[in-house]
């Protein structure tokens, strides 16, 4: 018994370390893939770690319009992502915290981070940041139901209403409910790209404030608050990524092999995102809702397929 407790705590320790240390690697991987596709050398894979270390030492500058609310966004996104990472199973090992209904908490935690980021953007009084904030909340109206319909389909398919049961359930293989699973994951991929402000919804590298969503909301952040924004965004990328790769992972014979599989899958996800970004352009802003509706429809169809 003590042995299994020890093993479990080792798993949890690995989970926490993964959640805290791994995230900045993923944007690095994505950028490296994009650079290679464009025939460039590109920045080092560890670039985001260097950026964070540098920003943490820099002094922050605050606009005279801002209040304490301005800091709420950066603080909330990191705090929320830390806690959310404890709710999501990484691969097949159950999450450190799991209970019935934890997926609702997960969705609302990210809702909280979004609300705080939007309010913190509005605190600057800049019309550009207001524009980004308005877009962020507009698109979330379509991603939130898509996320929940995906949860509904998975709950129906696995008979479980907890993330660890839905995503890391031992009985749930690709062989059962293949069609709905593909649809859910396709829908969630759209949610994933939108929530993490990637191409084709948002372009993190564009140079024009008018066309941005997430980047324009954090224009006035600098120093440590900006480091938090970048770190939090990379954590969100990994936590939402874990939702997508979880059901796809084949179950191996040994729990430590499952971890290796999880890391490989996260790397693969980063490569896929990099390829998508290299192959497509950003949509025009008024086309984005159609893309999101496609995600919503995919998850809704997944649910209806399971009903039939």
């Amino acid at each position, binding site marked *: 018994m003590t042995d299994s407790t020890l093993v479990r705590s080792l798993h949890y320790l690995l989970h926490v370390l993964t959640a805290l240390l791994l995230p900045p690697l993923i944007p690095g991987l994505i950028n490296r893939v994009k650079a290679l596709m464009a025939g460039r050398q590109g920045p080092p894979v560890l670039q985001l770690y260097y950026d964070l270390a540098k920003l943490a030492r820099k*002094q*922050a500058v605050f606009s005279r319009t801002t209040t304490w609310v301005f800091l709420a966004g950066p603080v909330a996104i990191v*705090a929320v992502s830390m806690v959310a990472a404890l709710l999501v199973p990484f691969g097949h090992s159950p999450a450190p915290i799991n*209970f019935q209904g934890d997926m609702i908490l997960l969705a*609302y935690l990210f809702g909280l981070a979004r609300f705080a980021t939007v309010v913190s953007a509005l605190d600057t*009084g800049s019309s550009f940041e207001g524009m980004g904030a308005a877009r962020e909340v507009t698109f979330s109206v379509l991603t939130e139901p898509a996320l929940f319909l995906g949860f509904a389909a998975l709950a129906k398919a696995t008979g*479980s209403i907890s993330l660890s049961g839905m995503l890391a359930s031992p009985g749930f293989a690709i062989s059962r409910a293949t069609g709905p699973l593909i649809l859910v994951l396709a829908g969630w991929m759209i949610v994933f790209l939108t929530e993490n402000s990637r191409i084709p919804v948002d372009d993190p590298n564009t140079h024009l404030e008018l066309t941005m969503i997430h980047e324009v909301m954090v224009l006035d952040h600098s120093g440590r608050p900006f480091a938090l924004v970048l770190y939090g965004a990379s954590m969100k990328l990994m936590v939402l990524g874990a939702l997508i790769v979880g059901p796809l992972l084949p179950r191996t014979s040994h729990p430590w092999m499952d971890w290796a599989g999880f890391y490989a899958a996260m790397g693969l996800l980063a490569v896929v995102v990099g390829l998508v970004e290299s192959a497509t352009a950003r949509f025009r802003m008024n086309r984005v809702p159609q893309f999101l509706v496609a995600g919503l429809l995919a998850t809704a169809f997944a649910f209806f397929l399971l009903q039939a």
Partner: protein
Amino acid sequence: MILFALALLLVAGSGVPGLWLRTGGGKAAAWLIGLGALSGLAAAGMVLGGAAPPTLALLHTPLGTQGFLRLDPVGAFFLVPVLVLPACGSAFAVGYWGDQHESARRLRLLYGITCAFLVLLTAAAQALTFLLAWEGMAITAFLLVMAEDRDPETRRAGWIYLASTHTGTLCLFAAFGLAAGAGASFLFGPVAPGLAATPRGSAIFMLCLAGFGLKAGVFPLHYWLPPAHAAAPSHVSSLMSGVLIKMGILGMVRALALVPDPPLWWGALLVALGAVSGILGVAFALAQHDLKRLLAYHSIENIGIILLGLGLGTLGKSTGHPVLQALGFAGALLHVLNHSLFKGLLFLGAGSVVHATGSRDLERMGGLARSMPVTAGAFLAGSWAICGLPPFNGFISEWLIYLAAFQGLAFAHSHWPVLALAALALIGALAAACFAKVFGVVFLGEPRTSAAAGAAEAPRAMRTPMLVLAGICAAIGVLPVLVGPALARAAGAAAGLPGPADLGGLAHLGALTAVTLPLLAAAGLIWAWTRKGAAPRAGLPTWDCGYAAASARIQYTASSFADELVTAMRFVLWPQVRWRRVLGLFPSQRSYRSHVPDPVLDRVAAPCLGFAERGLAVLHFFQSGQLPLYLLYILITLVALLVWMVA
């Protein structure tokens, strides 16, 4: 029961000392209501703690009454917001509606009497008592709305409210009459099994739904709510939105508890109405420019969420699925309490803003967080809670309803919960959008007008009630186990289960605390780390992309923030936009005006009633206003009756 009666008397008489006192009448009223609230909360606490429901038989009517008033767990659960909110509202009124207002005395007296009727209603155990308290509440609330009756807009709102509340009461009379005709007693005893499936049962259900739905503000019977809430003084709006409309829900819960075998379509209809009410409520809220109208539309949204819970619970009852039943009713009841707390808080916050700026128009505000930090903090807490974001109380009740929907999907093999699920997710995202807009435009950025720039923080009498309500919202949100046992008992009674609902086994409220406490700790640590690396404020302006001399008017406004969503939903909202296209170089001054009228009141009811009024103008011929003519009518009627009796 003595405690309950004491609470009733103290609250009812709270405005009386103020009739003679030259000053300090408001404080006296606040103290009296506060004392009454304490004694009433003690009574409610005993009932929710498991004591036998006390009864009070004041008179034995020929109807065979054994208990005139009976405080059961459901009533006790509703009694908590009914007492907490007036206590906070009357304290708020000391700073907000002081003795310099000519209507201050009248308003205080009526406020106390309205609250007393509300208290009475929670314990009414007999049809006659219930209807008496219901009418008393409706009429005194009408007088409260009419506090500023010199304003034509207020008069219009008041009359619309009066007409609709009486329509609702008529429906209730019909429903109670039909129920009595079917053998049910006036004592709220259980209905005979099988009655619910008959046409008469359906008629009773639909009449109850209409009567109680009009009070609760269920779409499309919500039309009286936005004008009345906007016109009333803020502490009255807080009372109406927080408690008074919940009495419609109390009625529905009472009626549903009596039926042992509701047909499946009852629950389905409740879920559908909840989804429509919730989504349209928040959609119309998003399009409003008037702070208090916006909050009123959010009440419609939250009533929708409560109906989703009630509907899921009823579905569980019909299909014999006790988990769904317990979770649905528990979520609905907790949302009743939560919505009272945070909506009461938001209306008080709105009152504080209106008090400081003299306007309800969102576009005339901005930057109030610096001049009114306490109001801003309390309003942010309320916004946080109403969006259902952890760690505030709104999340707990929405979580229970979500859990009910997931349980229904995964285990009860019913299709309706998915509607509830999708609707809740959509409502949550829209509500967050709406409150980001409200908080951002009112409290953040630069002041848009000189009135907003000159705003000052509210006096302490107004700040304290807001902080108390915000504190309760946070406490329930972080430690939901505090309300767990009381909720389980009330939900068990409302769902018609034999004992308290087994909430502890169904929903891990403790697990939520286990997540929110680390969240708060992490946020605190990160906050401290960020503050340490911050430079003193250099007083630099916001980055404006190189534009020189940017004014506060180029900020994103409430309309521009909501524009994308309003345009996307224009098929539902039908916004009226008047503007002229900007053409050529150096265009002259242009104006832009947008307005979203209420779909039922302004688009359907007002035109139809106007048409009917013109049609019935013929009858004006008989209404000449001359006394002899009326005497003649009476004579003719008498003669006609005489002839009819003889013949």
